[in-house]
């Protein structure tokens, strides 16, 4: 294996399995190569990793802190625990916190069935939310001709911000405010449809893990009937007269 200067090959143990990796790889990279599942939410390969959602926290022997696998580089002799009672409990709590934060009504969400948050909850056994829902009043922005931003479903993973800044180069999205009051915004917090910098590429929609950003025309109520494709109907009506 050839490596870049300064990069070393190291062996480490992940979930009791001996693994090999390069010192410029993260624990998550190596785990995935070996088919070891570590749950993630904010991370998307190809975008910068930020270690924010805390789903991929793992235990590393010798460190008293839990480390995010998506940004922690592997080291020779590392011993990584991915699944422990504590880690699993924390991940479930993290998911519960996310569900409690905004209004995630899966049954009427356009992304129902294709949502990372929903499927992780199922996978990790979250079948109810033990803490009270915060029920914030948040807006839906349908001003863009092709897309919708429904902040009820946003988990502030910032994938949209990163793909827009790092890949599309438009930097239309960013975060405003802080804490639970933070929101993703376009330009100077103007409606998306009025954005001067948005190129309409739709990358943000594709990377959104939930139903926060979606294409129009997907929701049940948006099934437009396009009867102009049936011109004979009016012809028949004329005939029937």
């Amino acid at each position, binding site marked *: 294996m050839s490596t870049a200067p300064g990069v070393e090959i190291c062996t480490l143990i992940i979930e009791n399995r001996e693994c090999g990796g390069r010192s410029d790889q993260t624990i998550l990279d190596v785990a995935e190569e070996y088919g070891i599942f570590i749950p993630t939410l904010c991370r998307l390969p190809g975008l910068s990793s930020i270690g924010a959602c805390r789903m991929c926290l793992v235990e590393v022997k010798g460190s008293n802190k839990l480390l995010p696998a998506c940004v922690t580089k592997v080291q020779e002799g590392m011993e990584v625990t991915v699944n422990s009672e504590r880690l699993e409990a924390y991940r479930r709590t993290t998911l519960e916190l996310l569900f409690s934060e905004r209004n995630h009504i*899966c049954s009427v969400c356009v992304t*129902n069935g294709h949502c990372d948050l929903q499927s992780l909850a199922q996978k990790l056994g979250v079948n109810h939310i033990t803490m009270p829902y915060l029920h914030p009043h948040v807006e839906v922005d349908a001003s863009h001709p092709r897309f919708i931003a429904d902040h009820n479903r946003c988990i502030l993973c910032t994938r949209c911000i990163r793909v827009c800044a790092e890949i599309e180069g438009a930097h239309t999205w960013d975060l405003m405010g802080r804490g639970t009051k933070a929101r993703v915004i376009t330009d100077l917090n103007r409606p998306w449809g009025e954005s001067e910098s948005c190129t309409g590429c739709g990358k943000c929609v594709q990377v959104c893990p939930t139903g926060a950003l979606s294409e129009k025309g997907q929701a049940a109520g948006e099934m437009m009937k396009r009867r102009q494709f049936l011109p004979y109907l009016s012809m028949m009506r004329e005939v029937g007269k």
Partner: protein
Amino acid sequence: MTKAKTPKARVATVWLDGCSGCHMSLLDIDERLILLADKIDLVYSPLVDAKDFPENVDVAIVEGAVSNTEDLHKIKLIRKNSRVLVSLGDCAVTGNIPSMRTVFPLQSLLDRVYDENATINKKVPTKVVPKLLEQVHPLHEIVPVDVYVPGCPPSADTIFLAISELLEGRVPQLNEVTRFGA
């Protein structure tokens, strides 16, 4: 076999604030209902005639969220009188669609419905209908719940599995077969 001697389980189903879709899904277990009929005694349900929630219920299966004072009263009584409480469907488990009104202050909601949008009789009803709570609650925010069956509605298979397992005295493991919004 001493099967005939086994007493039938006393089962109740309840419909709180929800669309009754979960009950429809329950009926969708079709011919398997006959299998269940051998094992259970349906002591209370929108499907039977009992008016008051009975005592000494083995399994109470509750659909819908807690939205008004009557729901509140009922769910406490149900919990008191039942050994196992099953939270059936997303409304019972998460609040789901009924809870979407919680983001608005109750009074503004009532004004909107019974005043601004009303053409006749502009008045918030106070008689016959129970008072709405400030917030819509999933069941477990009010009483302890034993089994959660998310889904909108949970499929007939899921419901059948849940009931069958309970009748066998096991805690149903449903994560593989259902989820929020399923």
